[in-house]
């Protein structure tokens, strides 16, 4: 009798143990003893210098995420702090700062922008530390894999369908001229636009180059209009794009839906320069500001409160999501922040983020595969009074 009870009890214990291990979902937060009092995430950013206005809202997004995370209990129970590290678009400063960061940091954000990425990322790679370059193209980020991830899929895969969709919205459009600035990955993006146009059967006219230091755009507008295009694509600096549109309009351009602005022009300086003259133009980007979720609405309200009522620019969500991704990576992989395990935990975080599935971003969920996002949407918007109205969503 006693033996029987013993067997039943043992069986019950085995069953309970089985149920417990079975119930644990894959990737569930591991309960670990964290060795830090505070998670510190350095963010190498251009907080001063020529792109300080962009650096400001990138930093704002990251700090917003940190604030929310702390209000919800932190990462593995400990608060998180985003530390702004200003590189002022100076590679000389960037390398020294990255040199400091790699000494004992688990994971970093940035650098921003490309010249500092080029100079500083080799240091992160050599020291096997993930630094999330969430605002640069895949073509830059992939050079530093696996110690970076890309926020954007391949340009030549993503952009042609977008442009084709835009061309299909304007079936009378038979030829398009593109304004291109010779900067970073933009010529590559312009080439991808052309592929999309050709797929839609639209003739690609001679491009018009926009130099970085132009102050008047009449000559460019004339050069473009001389070719008698039906449509215009602008792949250049935001304030220059705005001025070019104004110049085109002053020379009789009427059909605004046949003007397409690329994502890198979707910046506060586009709207502050162009104002109402942009109304009706189409712009593509990767976030839809009209999504109605409590989290996004709270983000928008907070941004408007801190920025004179402005809408959040598209890039403002990138580092917000990056901070949340770090949170998820730390909690799901059981990272402790133990300095003795720095190398090992850096690797865990990098591997997790490069292949995360169903990451819940601020505006949509997405997957990563080998450091490249696989199913992010892209959107076409119409600009009206400084705001973007969704026209079409395009998914891979």
């Amino acid at each position, binding site marked *: 009798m006693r033996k029987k009870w013993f067997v039943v009890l043992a069986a019950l214990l085995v069953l309970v143990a089985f149920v417990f291990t079975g119930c644990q979902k894959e990737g569930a937060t591991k309960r670990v003893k964290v060795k830090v009092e505070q998670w510190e995430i350095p963010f190498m950013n251009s907080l001063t210098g020529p792109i300080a206005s962009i650096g400001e809202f990138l930093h704002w997004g990251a700090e917003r995420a940190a604030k929310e995370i702390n209000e919800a209990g932190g990462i593995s129970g400990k608060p998180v702090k985003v530390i702004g590290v200003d590189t002022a678009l100076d590679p000389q400063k960037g390398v020294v700062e990255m040199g400091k960061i790699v000494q004992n940091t688990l994971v970093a954000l940035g650098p921003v922008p490309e010249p500092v990425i080029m*100079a500083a990322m*080799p240091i992160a790679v050599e020291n096997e530390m993930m630094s999330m370059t969430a605002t640069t193209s895949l*073509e830059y980020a992939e050079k530093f894999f696996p110690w970076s991830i890309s926020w954007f899929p391949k340009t030549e895969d993503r952009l042609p369908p977008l442009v084709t969709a835009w061309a299909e919205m304007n079936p009378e459009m038979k030829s398009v001229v593109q304004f291109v600035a010779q900067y970073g990955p933009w010529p590559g993006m312009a080439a991808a636009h052309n592929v999309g146009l050709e797929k839609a059967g639209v003739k690609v006219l001679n491009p018009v180059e926009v130099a970085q230091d132009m102050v008047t755009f009449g000559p460019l507008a004339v050069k473009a209009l001389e070719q008698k295009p039906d449509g215009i694509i602008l792949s250049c600096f935001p304030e220059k794009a705005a001025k070019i549109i104004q110049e085109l309009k002053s020379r009789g351009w009427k059909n605004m839906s046949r003007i397409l602005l690329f994502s890198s022009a979707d910046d506060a300086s586009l709207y502050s320069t162009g104002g109402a003259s942009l109304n009706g133009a189409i712009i593509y980007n990767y976030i839809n500001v009209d999504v109605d979720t409590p989290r996004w609405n709270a983000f928008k309200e907070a941004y408007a409160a801190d920025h004179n009522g402005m809408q959040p620019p598209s890039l403002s969500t990138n580092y917000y999501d990056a901070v949340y991704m770090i949170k998820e990576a730390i909690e799901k992989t059981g990272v402790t922040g133990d300095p003795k395990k720095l190398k090992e935990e850096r690797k865990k975080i990098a591997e997790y983020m490069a292949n995360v599935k169903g990451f819940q971003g601020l505006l949509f969920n997405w997957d990563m595969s080998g450091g490249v996002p696989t199913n992010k949407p892209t959107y076409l918007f119409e600009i009206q009074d400084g705001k973007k109205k969704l026209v079409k969503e395009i998914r891979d």
Partner: protein
Amino acid sequence: MSLPLYYFLTITAINILMSWALYLPYRVAHLHFLTVANMAISGYLSGWLVQGLGFSFWAALPIGLLAGGLLGWLLSLFIGDAPTFTVVIVGFTFIYITRTVIENTKAVGATMGMFGLPLVAGSPAAHRWALLALLYALVLVVGFLIHRFEHSRLGRASSAVFVDKDLATSFGVDIKKLGRLLQVFSSTVAGGCGVIYGFLYRSFHLDFFTFQLVGLFMTIIFVGGYATMWGVVVAAPLLYGLTLLFPPEVASWRIVIYGAILVAVLVLKPEGFITRRLILNLERLLSSKRKKI
């Protein structure tokens, strides 16, 4: 050696060398901004040789030096004794031309830049030590040559040209030859710096070589002292290090502080901190102490 210290030392060495490259022609009142174009041209050339044609860094470096010197020599045939402004315009012109050519040349990465330049030695640590040693060897060699120049007839001739060109000519100073010599030397040094700069970062990007570099080197020369080579040695690490030490609240006003320092020094100490008189007094002090010993 810690990484921040390594980068601080190596970039300071680059800034010293490049500021000397600008300082030398300034001894005859030439603002030789061509040096920034030399940096970019030799740098990208070396990157292409190494990545495209499989040269080693140690073979590409002398080629970069030669390329800088050659361009400097060619242009010096026209501007060896040109007025200051002409030399300034030459510099600006070549910076624009260089940038435009590079951004349109796919072989050197065009607007994307060049990635993944190889190590110059077997391991990352060896690479760092090699570059550090090379840079400070260059600082010593170039510094020695400039020091010898300044204490030679040519140095005294250049001082005369700086003060009064016509008087110098009447004393038999060949301004064109002197100008050409200084410009060629300056362009050669700049070419070498360009090569090493890229391998320091292990990449090249157009925005490594901007007009802001011109501003930086000018600031170093004028704040440190434009009358003697030692001003650069003092100002380069100070101005670079200062910005790295600023707390975040102050760092956001970095450029304003830089500009204010520049203006204040030029107004209060127009010759810069390290003047000829100071060096002379130091030399006298040291030699009197040596005699006592």
